[in-house]
């Protein structure tokens, strides 16, 4: 279905990534947000607080991130599309509720504008060091989707896509911005509402007596209901059976927890979101994401100018990791160069998928700025040698 025009600010704008992300939430149909201020992400909800009263929805500033990250889930079960926004320490506080959303299959969006860590770290400076936390930060086995925009335009576009994916798969989606992308201002084109595809929540068509809240369809994703419609349903973070009732046994745990992972497999394979360039003849492939992909672009150009056959692989959906794509490439390239603003996170996934068939070279950075393109170039040159 198309976006509701009430939330769509059609036109050509000059926006920073945080504000563009906010416009994405509105275009996607989000009418509820709960947040707690933290740099460098607060601008997303500041704009939402400014825009939402004339669109028709609610922003509430909660008492902490624990509250914000569960209030959005209450809103979702009340029928809303909802999101929260945070950075650094706030993301750490939200971990329990990312697990709750995964376990209860609550579609919702967490925007994390990454800053330097650990702890309070570098509040106003960029990092990409929450990538593993986004995937593994809550306890237990589960799976999530994480998207990494590299421009304000993508902050808009991918936020809509993030909401759509969260509805399709009933999972929490992490929007993994970084301080640079969040605070850089560029042209953002917002199309007409009828040009924007929005995935509606898949509400069941079954009557209450036939409906089971966690009975999966063929695609392993169950249909939803919302409170107040007479279904008298039960939601729990405990391991539960298809009726949603707690069920403390090994069999239910096995079925349930495996399904939480398996339902996302299509995104790890055919439907992985990535941007590639010059892969056909590439001997060295630079795998990057977010702001680092723009620095890598420069390094790849410089390498090509020197006659090195460098290619680009940009992760747009970092989670699920596009394992198959990297594995296919590993058979025919010499090396992967993986720059990221952390001391080595996604590089381990690349190495796992490459499985020894190509060299994997990290270009780490402890955070606080972006890479110098020369650092990436140097790694490409060495890899090609």
């Amino acid at each position, binding site marked *: 279905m198309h976006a509701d025009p009430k939330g769509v600010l059609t036109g050509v704008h000059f926006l920073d990534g945080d504000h563009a992300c906010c416009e994405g939430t509105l275009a996607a149909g989000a009418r509820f947000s709960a947040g707690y201020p933290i740099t460098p992400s607060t601008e997303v909800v500041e704009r939402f607080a400014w825009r939402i009263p004339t669109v028709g929805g609610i922003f509430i500033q909660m008492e902490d991130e624990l509250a914000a990250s569960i209030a959005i889930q209450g809103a979702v079960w*009340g029928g809303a599309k909802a999101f929260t926004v945070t950075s650094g320490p706030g993301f750490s506080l939200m971990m329990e509720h990312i697990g709750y959303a995964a376990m209860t299959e609550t579609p919702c969006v967490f925007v994390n504008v990454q800053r330097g860590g650990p702890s309070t770290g570098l509040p106003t400076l960029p990092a990409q060091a929450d990538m593993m936390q986004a995937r593994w930060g809550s306890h237990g086995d589960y799976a999530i989707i994480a998207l990494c925009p590299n421009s304000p335009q993508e902050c808009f576009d991918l936020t809509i896509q993030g909401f759509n994916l969260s509805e399709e798969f009933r999972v929490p989606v992490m929007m993994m911005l970084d301080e640079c992308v969040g605070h850089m201002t560029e042209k953002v084109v917002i199309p007409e509402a009828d040009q924007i595809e929005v995935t509606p929540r898949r509400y069941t068509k079954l009557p209450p007596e036939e409906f089971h809240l966690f009975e999966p369809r063929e695609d392993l994703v169950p249909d939803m209901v919302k409170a107040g419609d007479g279904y008298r349903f039960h939601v729990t973070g405990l391991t539960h059976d298809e009726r949603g009732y707690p069920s403390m046994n090994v069999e239910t745990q096995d079925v349930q927890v495996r399904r939480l992972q398996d339902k996302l497999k299509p995104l790890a394979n055919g439907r992985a979101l990535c941007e590639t360039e010059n892969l056909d003849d590439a001997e060295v492939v630079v795998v990057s994401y977010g702001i680092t992909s723009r620095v890598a672009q420069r390094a790849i150009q410089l390498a090509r100018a020197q006659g090195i056959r460098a290619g680009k692989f940009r992760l747009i959906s970092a989670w699920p990791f596009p394992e198959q794509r990297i594995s296919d490439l590993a058979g025919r390239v010499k090396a992967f160069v993986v720059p990221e603003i952390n001391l080595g996170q996604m590089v381990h996934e690349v190495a796992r998928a490459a499985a020894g068939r190509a060299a994997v070279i990290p270009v780490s950075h402890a955070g606080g700025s972006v890479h110098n393109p020369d650092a990436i170039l140097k790694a490409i040159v060495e890899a090609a040698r």
Partner: protein
Amino acid sequence: MNQVTLEIPYEIPVDAHNPVEPFLRMDRMPHIWCPGCGIGTTVNCFTRALLDSKANLDKVAVVSGIGCTGRVAGYANLDSFHTTHGRALPFATGLKLANPELQVVVYSGDGDLFAIGGNHFIHAARRNMDLKVICVNNLTYAMTGGQTAPTTPDHVISATSPYGVFEPSFNLVALAEAAGASYVARWTTYHVKQLSRSMEEVLSKKGFCFIEVLSPCPTLYQRRNKMGDGLDAMKFYKQVSKIRHGAPTSECALTKSGEIVVGKFVDRDRPDYLELLRGQMTESLGDRYAEPEVSCSC
């Protein structure tokens, strides 16, 4: 001991089931609560309040945190949410704001609402969020084995205070009033009639309403403190409780074996969160303000 009789305001057909059955998920029985536990009594009172209030049950939701009391959500035959430890109130806040026609009841334990969730409690009360909070206060963390809670009175022996509690405890009704609750009452599981009536009353009262129910945990609290079983708890409640409606909440602190002041302490009208939001937005934005339509067809 005096028999507690309940007046049932409807006719019971001869072949009737337990009249509260329609309110419970009978396919989940037997429940997990111990013999003599007070939580079931509070649920009984709650179902009677629902019955008497003639509420549309499709529009009543129960939100619980984690604990023995947290299991109430799982047994109520309503839209029900068993959330995370301490976070029932912020979950309920989102649910209510997305779908204001719901009557949202938060049903949880003293540890859940006042230790890990204490911050959420004072803020939900401050906002006068239209939520009805029922706190089963068994003066301990029961689910995890009877450890010290912020409500455990002085000198009580608990799993983590083997030599006796010495840190001061919260007076929940005073805390609720100070934080801004519109309605504050306290009963014990001995006062089933009054408790049902209070529950019924809050179902038609706007704003943040708080009912504390003192409830025995014979398995962990009573046993460790040589206070007998569930029946002994009833005798104790009967003996030491005193109904004082309107009593200043500051005078209602609890001790291990002293007087328990019960009654309705606060019943006041304050605009609730959504009324305040609408008022402010209309004042600032006039016609440009759009009524929230949070729950959308998309």
